[in-house]
């Protein structure tokens, strides 16, 4: 309860600002509506009500967004395209797969970079460069070539292949924060801790598992939180070129083609809730790991 209190207060504050902003942002359109309808001297309360309940508002209000969320989750069977749960699930599966692939890749690259100077010098600049390539430009390539390879050469059925294509984009976005964080983390042991391993003539893998890896934990979890969020962004972006079939990204985009503002916001919130849940899940794992590592309570 003590933890819920502040959240509620902050939420209330945000909702208050939200509704106030909705009046301002939706007012021009509302005035146009009144003008077209030749309505003059509309009472202010009526005006406020109207701005809060437009069909295609610039800024939809909380009750509209949550109403839509409710309608498209609780009132629709979760296996129907109208259900946000269906789309969230599609996005989540690509995110999860991409996150796992991206994290493994990120950690793997960090390990190579930390252990091998040639890797460090040759790989790092290119890893950085890879991230500056706009994925949306690369995505069609991945879709055209990757998807064909998956379904053609490798004979994977379309659905898993589509999942893989999205997961690749998701992994592409998430491996970088993990790699950067882990390079730092794996290099964070104090000199004397490394010296100790040196005196035991520990093999690189022993030094890694017994020293570098545990020492990198704080960096790992900060990176994983960013990474899982990036994975979700990647999965959503990846949903655009895979033919906008299903998923929160497809839903967002399709919503925008028909100016379904409320629907867009509902999908946005669904994505954010998914992101928050994923980040919190990583946080829970972090706490468990910290406890098992005997972390000192702050």
């Amino acid at each position: 309860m003590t933890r819920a209190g502040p959240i509620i207060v902050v939420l209330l504050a945000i909702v208050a600002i939200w509704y106030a902003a909705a009046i301002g942002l939706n007012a021009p359109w509302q005035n146009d509506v009144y003008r077209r309808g030749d309505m003059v001297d509309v009472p202010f309360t009526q005006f406020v009500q109207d701005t809060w309940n437009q069909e295609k508002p610039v800024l939809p209000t909380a009750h509209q967004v949550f109403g839509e969320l409710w309608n498209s989750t609780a009132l629709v069977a979760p296996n129907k395209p109208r259900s946000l749960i269906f789309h969230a699930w599609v996005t989540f599966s690509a995110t999860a797969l991409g996150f796992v692939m991206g994290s493994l890749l990120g950690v793997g690259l960090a390990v190579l970079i930390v252990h091998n100077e040639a890797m460090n010098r040759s790989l790092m600049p290119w890893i950085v460069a890879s991230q500056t390539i706009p994925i949306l430009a690369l995505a069609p390539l991945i879709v055209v070539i990757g998807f064909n390879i998956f379904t053609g050469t490798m004979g994977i059925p379309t659905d898993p292949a589509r999942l893989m294509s999205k997961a690749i984009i998701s992994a592409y976005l998430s491996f970088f924060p993990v790699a950067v964080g882990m390079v730092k983390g794996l290099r964070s042991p104090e000199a004397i801790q490394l010296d100790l391993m040196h005196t035991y003539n520990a093999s690189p893998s022993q030094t890694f598992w017994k020293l570098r890896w545990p020492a990198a934990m704080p960096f790992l979890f900060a990176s994983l939180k960013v990474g899982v969020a990036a994975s979700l962004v990647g999965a959503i972006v990846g949903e655009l070129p895979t033919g906008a079939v299903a998923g929160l990204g497809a839903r967002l985009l399709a919503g925008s083609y028909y100016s379904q503002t409320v629907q867009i916001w509902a999908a946005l919130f669904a994505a954010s809730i998914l992101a928050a849940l994923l980040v919190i899940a990583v946080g829970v794992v972090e706490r468990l790991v910290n406890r098992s590592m005997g972390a000192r309570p702050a």
Partner: protein
Amino acid sequence: QDTVTLQLKWVTQAQFAGYYVAQAKGFYEEEGLTVEIKPGGPDIAPEQVIAGGGADVITTWMAAGLAARERGVPLVNIAQPFKNSGLLLTCLKEAGVETTADFPGKTLGVWFFGNEYPFYAWMAKLGYSTEGGADGVEVLKQAFNVDPLIQKQAACISTMTYNEYGQVLKAGITPEELTVFNYRDEGVGMLEDGLYVLEENLADPAFVEKMTKFVRASMKGWEYARANAEEAAQIVLDNDSTGAMTLEDQLYQMTEVNKLTEGSTGALDEADYQQTVDTLLSAVSPDNPAITKAPEGAFTHAVTDGL
């Protein structure tokens, strides 16, 4: 059984109803075909997909198809289900646009991604610079929705008769408040949705045969859609796995699209082709290099002859 993969230019909507109907009604099956319809999206270039082997046949606008051909993707038009074009430039009178003479100094929303060629041809014809300034027009890359008009960020925006124009009206703006320019009426109309394949495949008679079956079934689908607009709209809706569209929107779109496919047998009308090519060539500029010379062999009747 023969399989065909069709890559659409855009997301599932009534614009492509003929294909979805043909599939749902079993017309493809009757021809012994299994057809996979791949929806497109804002960054899917069907030309790229077909070049990469991801599709057997694609739908695209002719201008984009010819542009791709000049850039090394040898696309050939095998059929033209859309007889008429539906591209409009829709302006707010309130913003001061009544005639083309009012354009200078205004901001115009344009769709890019291969959809901009008609616009540039038109501006070339009108002699307006697209670089802004007092005698030019300010060009906005418009997202694929009508927000810029409703938010009054642009004086004019691109719309399709069958989609965005309806959205503008639905938003509550009346036709009286709008000035609408139809590209066809301005003499810069270009052929829209056609079916394109790679030239090298046409050397294979079996492929031509397969395409003939495909086009025949597709045209049957279009015919059915014209006769049963409501059912067709529902079929499209059933094929949309995003769940974002409404039946109302699709029914409107179906009705308008039916006006565009009206009168097409599937075969390309060479006069229409020539008009598109001429318009494109009239507007060649470094900014807008759709094509620089008249294309050769960009269409064939081989497929539609067999209908």
